């Protein structure tokens, strides 16, 4: 038993069906399973272009048990707002979830995301952050971390990762949280809490991608956990603007208890061009993110 939920109480119904065309060890597939376990049949997914569109498979069949609206890249949150409004008028119980990648959240779809947050539409936006455009062949996004290789940053990215959870926090929405596929119970708990709140909810799910990050598919969960243990990814939850660091990340507020970032870097091929100097810069960036976040607690 972890937190308030027992693993044995989780629904056994398969919301992501076997035989889907995701890569082996796919974190998005894991995330979709946890979404089903948390919210079940009430979910209506709005999916912009991304890996999730591929995971659905080809017509006339698809491999998920959620009703899905596939939409063009930049319109996801606008469509979701419409679906949520329609369901409210009809008086039907539904949870409208935007399942978008990092590109559809931070780059291309940011205008409608910000718009929906400002209007306070009753939807949940989940950003599945695999830190590059994996679906089209590993191009850099604004959420790619400093120093990471992609097909458009051969010598490692020179800019820092955009802090989207904090940007969403500044929209003063009722619920903002970060989660990781390495901590499923934490993610499920956050989803179940978010669904009780009326208004715009934002959850940022960290999803290590074996294909794009260049590590063995069996390590998906391990890499996700290492990201939290090294402090590279911080799990927190903010209800009505009050930031609370989540239990898995709590010990790592103290810098000395974090594992060395080198542990996280060396099992991923995408950081192979990173020099010692750049590693120091990355470490200072991580400290910077922690400092900024703890100011809100």
């Amino acid at each position: 038993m972890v937190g308030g939920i027992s693993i044995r109480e989780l629904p056994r119904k398969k919301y992501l069906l076997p035989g889907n065309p995701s890569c082996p060890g796919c974190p998005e597939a894991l995330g979709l399973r946890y979404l089903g376990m948390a919210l079940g049949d009430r979910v209506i997914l709005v999916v912009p272009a991304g890996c999730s569109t591929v995971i659905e498979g080809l017509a006339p069949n698809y491999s998920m048990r959620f009703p899905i609206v596939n939409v063009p890249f930049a319109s996801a949150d606008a469509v979701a707002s419409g679906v949520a409004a329609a369901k409210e008028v009809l008086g039907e119980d539904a949870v409208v979830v935007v399942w978008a990648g990092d590109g559809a959240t931070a780059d291309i779809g940011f205008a409608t995301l910000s718009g929906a947050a400002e209007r306070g539409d009753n939807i949940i936006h989940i950003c599945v952050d695999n830190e590059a455009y994996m679906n089209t062949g590993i191009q850099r996004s604004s959420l790619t971390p400093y120093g990471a290789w992609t097909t458009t940053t051969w010598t490692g990215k020179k800019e820092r990762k955009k802090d989207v959870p904090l940007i969403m926090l500044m929209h003063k929405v009722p619920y903002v949280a970060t989660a990781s596929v390495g901590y499923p119970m934490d993610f499920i708990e956050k989803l179940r809490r978010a669904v009780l709140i009326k208004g715009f909810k934002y959850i940022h799910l960290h999803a290590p991608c074996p294909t794009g990050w260049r590590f063995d598919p069996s390590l998906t969960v391990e890499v996700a956990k290492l990201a939290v243990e090294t402090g590279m990814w911080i799990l927190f939850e903010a209800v009505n603007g009050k930031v609370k660091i989540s239990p898995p990340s709590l010990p790592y507020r103290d810098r000395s208890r974090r594992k060395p970032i080198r542990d996280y870097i060396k099992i991923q091929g995408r950081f192979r061009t990173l020099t010692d100097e750049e590693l120091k810069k990355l470490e200072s960036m991580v400290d910077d993110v922690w400092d900024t976040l703890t100011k809100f607690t």
Partner: protein
Amino acid sequence: MSEISHILPLSKPKEGISRTGTWRLKKPVIDHSKCVKCMMCWLHCPESTIDVVESSDKFVEVNYDFCKGCGVCANVCPVKAISMVPEG
């Protein structure tokens, strides 16, 4: 519903749209005598191919028709009861 699907491009959910078991290079084999029934493999399987059958002696079973052999289950097992055996 069937009338609408003639007009609109609607897909329907179906298990096994492709036989992903053929992608596998290594096969997870569960040593049931070591299993402590924690269900971590079921929770962390990205493909929904591990089933929990409480009535059976085996408790957890892998659906080899669709298992892609990623090895996440072997990695998260706390008692290392799952080993990855090369195919063929």
